[in-house]
C-alpha cells in the first residue's frame, strides 16, 4: 500500500508538472501575441547601434595599455590567452590565477589591472554617464564574440557551485523597504510593468530569452549597458544596498542566471527599449 501511494503521488506530481508546464506555455504564447510593443520591436529590425560599441571594444582589446602590452596578448577569459570566440558563453567560471569565480566584467578588470591600467577609475565610471565607458565597449565586443554560441556554464568546480547557490539564494531573498526579491517580479509568467513584459527568470525559457539578449543597446540611454548594470539597476529599484561592481554577490547572481539560461543561444548585444 505504501509503495502504491508513493506511486500515485509521483504520478500526480508528474501530471501536475505537465499541466503546469503546458499552462505556462499557453500563457507565454498568448502574452507574446498580445504584446503591444511587438510591432515596435519588429520594426527596429537588426540594425543595432551596439555595433559601434563592439568596434570600440575591439580596438581597446588590441590597444597597448600603460605597460605596453595588449589585452589580446595577455588576457585569458577561460579558453586560453587571447581566445575570445565562445569565451563569454562559458562565463562566469572559476579562475585558478585569482582563486575566484569571475564573470566577464570582473575578469576584464583583472586583466586590465595586470597591464597597469587604472582600474579604480575604470570601475568608477563602469556605467558611462552619457557616454560609454571602456568596460562597456570591451564587454560589447567580447559578448559579440559569442554570438550564436549556446550558453554552457560548467559548475564543475566547487566554487562555481557555491556561487550558483549563493546567486539563487539572492534571487529569492526578500529585503529592503519594499520587502522585494528578484523573484517578486521575475518568477511568474505573464507579469508586466506598464507595457513591459517581465521575463520569468525562474523558467529556462524566460532565463534564456533574457540572458542571451544582455548586454544590450539601451534605447532610453543611447548606450550599451552590461548585465551587471542591469542587475545593479534592479537592486536600486528594489531599494536594496548598491550592488557593487564585480563583487561576489554580483558574480553569484550572474552565475545563477547564466546557468538558468543553459543552452540558450547568445544573441547579444541586444536592442532594448
Amino acid at each position, binding site marked *: 500500500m505504501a509503495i502504491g501511494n508513493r506511486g500515485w503521488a509521483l504520478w500526480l506530481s508528474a501530471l501536475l508538472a505537465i499541466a503546469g508546464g503546458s499552462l505556462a506555455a499557453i500563457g507565454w504564447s498568448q502574452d507574446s501575441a498580445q504584446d*503591444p*510593443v511587438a*510591432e*515596435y*520591436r519588429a*520594426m*527596429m*529590425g537588426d540594425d543595432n547601434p551596439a555595433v559601434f560599441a563592439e568596434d570600440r571594444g575591439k580596438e581597446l582589446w588590441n590597444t597597448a595599455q600603460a605597460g605596453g602590452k595588449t589585452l589580446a596578448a595577455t588576457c585569458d577569459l577561460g579558453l586560453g590567452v587571447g581566445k575570445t570566440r565562445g569565451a563569454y558563453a562559458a562565463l562566469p567560471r572559476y579562475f585558478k590565477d585569482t582563486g575566484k569565480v569571475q564573470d566577464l566584467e570582473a575578469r576584464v578588470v583583472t586583466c586590465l589591472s595586470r597591464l597597469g591600467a587604472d582600474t579604480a577609475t575604470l570601475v568608477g565610471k563602469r556605467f558611462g554617464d552619457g557616454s560609454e565607458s571602456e568596460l562597456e565597449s570591451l564587454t560589447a565586443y567580447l559578448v559579440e564574440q559569442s554570438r550564436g554560441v549556446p550558453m554552457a556554464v560548467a559548475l564543475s568546480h566547487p566554487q562555481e557551485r557555491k556561487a550558483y547557490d549563493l546567486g539563487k539564494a539572492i534571487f529569492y531573498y526578500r529585503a529592503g523597504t519594499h520587502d522585494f526579491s528578484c523573484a517578486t517580479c521575475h518568477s511568474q509568467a505573464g507579469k508586466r*510593468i*506598464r*507595457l*513591459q513584459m*517581465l521575463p520569468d527568470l525562474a523558467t529556462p525559457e524566460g532565463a534564456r530569452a533574457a540572458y542571451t539578449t544582455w548586454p544590450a543597446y*539601451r*534605447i*532610453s*540611454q*543611447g548606450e550599451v*549597458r552590461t548585465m551587471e548594470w542591469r542587475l545593479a*539597476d534592479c537592486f*536600486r*529599484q528594489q531599494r536594496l544596498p548598491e550592488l557593487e561592481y564585480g563583487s561576489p554577490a554580483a558574480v553569484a547572481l550572474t552565475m545563477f542566471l547564466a546557468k538558468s539560461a543553459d543552452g540558450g543561444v547568445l544573441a547579444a548585444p541586444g536592442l532594448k*527599449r
Partner: protein
Amino acid sequence: MTVDRRKFLGLTGGGGVLALCAGTGLLPRLAAALTSPLAAGDTRKPFEASTLDAVIKAFGGAASQASGDIDLRAPEIAENGAVVPIEITSKLPGTKLIAIVSEKNPHALSAAFHIPEGTEAWISTRVKIAETSNVVALVQTDKGFFHAERLVKVTLGGCGG
C-alpha cells in the same frame, strides 16, 4: 436642440465649401512653388516651423491634401519615444520630397529627404517623438503637397532605466 443641430449641419456644409476654395486657391501658389525651388541657404528654414502648415509654407507650398497613395509605417505603440522607426512609401508620381513632421515636437519638422530621379520614393529611418501624437508623412510632387498621418502612442515600458 434642433437649432443647434442645424447650426452644426450648416457648419459642416460650410467646411466643405471652404475645402473646395482651398483646393482651387492652391493652384497659383503651386505655380510659384514650382518656379522658385528652395534656395540653398533656406534649407534650415522649415526646421523653425512649429506646425505642419508652417512647414509646408517654409517649403514654398500653401496647403496639403490627405492622400491614400502615401504609406506611412510606424508602430502604434512606441516602447520609447527616443527611437521610433518610421518607413514611408509614396506611390504619387513625381515625388521629389518626403518629410517627417511631428507637431508636438519642439520643432515640427524632423527630417526632409530630397528624392532625385532614379531613387525610389521610399525612406526608412528612426526619429524622436516627444509625446503621443500624429506623425505626418509629408510628400511634395509636381502637383503640390500631400500627406498621410498615423497616431503613435509613446510609452515608457518597464521600470527605471
